[in-house]
């Protein structure tokens, strides 16, 4: 089945030489790799801000910086992590690299648009990050209305940067939807698509429907600051809660843009390492789409205490319960996939199991926040901070780590060592729980979020959290070390190291420039391992 011989020497990495060939490439694989390194660089910057926030909160009152600098730290941590890291993290790295190969296509539908979306991302990201050299940003990543309008920081610049980055996401989504529709391999009908493609398809639908609303909301904020249009400014007759509606109409679907691709990766990893087909493929695809549709009707649960009418709170709370059901279906189905399988604990599987653990905690704590009565007490406290870090860092970042360890041999053609990978996974997992579980307790005891100075009773919990955050940092550093080391002189990776049945493993690793020497024909499902020996 595998065709590794033909493309032995020539692959997409050494097809053309020189930095210019990389910067002007339209090969979806090279663009995926460029995104990978750019997004990870911003992940490092966002991570440093996270550590600075945790350092400042090590003790009540002044620890390392004053209140204004602290406000800039958490604003940058939020903005960089949300807009520059976790939204493009999986869709633009593994989406770009793997999606066309999963479909058996030679490239995405519009390769030049793909390169344009990379440069839009870079342009927007550097414009937003350049505000560090000016007056910074101090209204959080949410830019709530009256404060972001009166802020003397360079808010207009970061809003323009985020506006440009939004179009990068839209064009990528547009590209992938057309590719999924029009460039599928022969025999690859809709019910033989790998679930990663279903997850990416749902993510792209959300991206193409929600990101334009964010783009215009940011534009309206800029117009508000520059032209004084008064939609959100109470002194000109507007309503700040209207801004929260516009903002969360994008930002809740955005959290599903972050988590659905991670679910897609887990849908790929667990069957391969359990040697068993995914449990109830149709229900899983339906659950993915269920989440994608419900994503657009629940944004009001961020605003239960914001002066929203009781009618709206009632509606949003009721519909949000559906998300819990759909997520439950997926978690139980993953467990059912492991049932009676033949499980091998390679690094991707360890990260997938860490994902299930952490995402379950994240999902369950969502129940507290979707019920209005308990949410009134818990919203805007560290309980919410812990909840969205469990779902976003626990979900999307852990899903990404499972994905990088799963597709590393295919992308770089080298194998990494399993020992350090297990150590790093344990470090990050324990450090993560040590960082964020104490925050649940601080939150339920009433510690509000975005607090520079807190009451002495919360000191012990914050100190635990700071120690945990440095453990996570060490875990990621260890990961970076052994992955870069493997990139340089790791063992040559075979075409199909994990014995997977999806199309990208039928070609050499790293794949040739045109992905497949002969066009693949799909005859079986994506998780049919009967014909593949490990």
């Amino acid at each position, binding site marked *: 089945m595998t065709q590794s011989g033909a493309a032995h020497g020539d692959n997409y990495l050494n097809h053309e030489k020189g930095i210019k060939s990389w910067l002007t490439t339209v090969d979806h694989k090279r663009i995926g790799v460029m995104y990978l390194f750019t997004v990870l660089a911003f992940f490092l910057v966002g991570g440093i801000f996270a550590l600075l926030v945790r350092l400042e909160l090590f003790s009540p009152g002044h620890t390392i910086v004053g209140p204004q600098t602290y406000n800039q730290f958490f604003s940058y941590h939020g903005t960089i992590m949300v807009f520059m890291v976790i939204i493009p993290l999986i869709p633009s790295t593994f989406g770009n690299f793997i999606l066309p190969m999963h479909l058996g296509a030679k490239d995405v539908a519009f390769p030049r648009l793909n390169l344009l979306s990379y440069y839009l991302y870079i342009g927007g990201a550097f414009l937003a990050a350049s505000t560090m050299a000016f007056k910074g940003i101090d209204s959080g990543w949410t830019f709530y209305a009256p404060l972001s309008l009166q802020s*003397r920081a360079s808010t207009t610049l970061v809003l323009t940067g985020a506006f440009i980055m939004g179009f990068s996401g839209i064009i990528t989504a547009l590209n992938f939807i057309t590719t999924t529709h029009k460039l599928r391999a022969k025999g690859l009908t809709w019910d033989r698509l790998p679930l990663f493609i279903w997850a990416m398809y749902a993510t792209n639908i959300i991206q193409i429907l929600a990101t334009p609303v964010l783009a215009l909301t940011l534009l309206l904020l800029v117009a508000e600051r520059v032209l004084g249009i008064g939609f959100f400014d109470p002194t000109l007759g507007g309503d700040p809660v209207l801004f929260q509606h516009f903002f969360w109409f994008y930002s809740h679907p955005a959290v599903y843009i972050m988590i659905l691709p991670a679910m897609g990766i887990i849908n790929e990893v667990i069957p391969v390492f359990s040697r068993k087909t995914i449990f109830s493929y149709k229900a899983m695809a339906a659950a993915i789409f269920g989440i994608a549709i419900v994503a657009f009707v629940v944004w009001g649960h961020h605003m239960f205490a914001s002066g929203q009418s009781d009618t709206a*709170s009632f509606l949003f709370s009721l519909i949000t319960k559906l998300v819990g059901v759909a997520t439950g279906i997926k978690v139980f189905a993953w467990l059912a996939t492991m049932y*009676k*399988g033949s499980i091998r604990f390679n690094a991707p599987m360890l990260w997938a199991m860490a994902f299930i653990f952490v995402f*379950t905690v994240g999902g369950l704590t969502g129940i507290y926040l979707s019920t209005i009565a308990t949410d*009134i007490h818990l*919203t805007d406290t560290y309980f919410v901070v812990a909840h969205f870090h469990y779902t976003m860092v626990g979900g999307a970042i852990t899903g990404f780590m499972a994905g990088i360890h799963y597709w590393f041999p295919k992308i770089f053609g080298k194998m990494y060592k399993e020992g350090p990978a297990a150590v790093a996974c344990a470090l990050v997992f324990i450090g993560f729980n040590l960082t964020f579980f104490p925050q649940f307790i601080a939150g339920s005891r*009433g510690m*509000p979020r975005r607090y*520079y100075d807190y009451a002495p009773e919360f000191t012990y919990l914050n100190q635990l959290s700071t120690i945990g955050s440095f453990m996570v940092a060490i875990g990621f550093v260890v990961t970076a070390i052994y992955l870069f080391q493997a990139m340089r002189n790791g063992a040559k990776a075979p075409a199909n190291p994990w014995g997977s049945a999806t199309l990208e493993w039928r070609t050499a690793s790293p794949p040739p420039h045109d992905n497949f020497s002969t066009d693949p024909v799909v005859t079986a499902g994506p998780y049919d391992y009967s014909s593949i020996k490990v």
Partner: protein
Amino acid sequence: MAEHTFFGLLPPQATEIAKGVDDLFIFITAISVFFFLLVIGLMLSFARKYRAEKNPVPTDIHENLPLEILWTAIPTLILGVIFVWGFIVYKDMSAAPGSAYEIRAIGKQWLWKFQYDHGASTVGELYVPARQPVKIILTSDDVLHSLFIPDFRVKKDAVPGMYTSLWFRADEPGEHVIYCAEYCGTNHSGMLGKVIVMEPGKFEEWRSGKLDATATSNGENVPLDIQGKALTEKFGCVACHSTNGSVMVGPSFKGLYGKTETLSDNSKIVVDDAYIRESIIEPQAKVVLGFDPVMATYKGLVKEEDINAIIAYLQTLK
């Protein structure tokens, strides 16, 4: 102060509603712990029982409709129960009883101001009668704030240009902390307050003016500079102006009185009573060089006697 409830996970319960919310919180926790142990238990047992060495040949299972229906219906049922229970509790929380005593609260960059029906207004201290429903009508003068009283399990945003409301009935007298829960700028974490629950009789006494609302609790004849010190803490001055010479958001109070300061337009002035009074009422008028004009006005909040007390206090800080 009553101790924390539910293994220290929740603040003390100071109202009936708080008990209702905590019961629901405990129920959801029970459900969550159960499902957490179920999912993680199953995952670990499958991982141990079906690892490659022990179970080399995987069995081919595609789906199991009854099981799928089960694990869709049960969560839906449980979430339905939680929703209905939550709605019942919330109905009491949202609608204040008609007989509630109304107090207006105004959030302002970095302090809470409360206005009572008999005309008095206090900063940072909310005086309420025990065992009687109290309705707080919230609004804000500048940006979003949020009145959060953990012990009462109540929280509502103060939105400029709009009124929102919350209500509670405190069980017994005591003091409870007030936080601002909506990020509102530099001193968001310093925007604290206190709910002082009094016996109804004592509250009536206070209400009819016998106790001066702004005097510190230990009565009348407190020296002016001591009152001034208490006022600089209550109005949140010390959150931005240090008293030990270190530069914070604003210039330090230490040695400020009588000092010649250079202003942002490089002109020089001597810090005297008039400059301090003007900087409290119109902070942007004369900003010291090197500082951002961040300070918001205290006009309408600080009385003349308060300014005199603050000036007296500043004179003691050599």
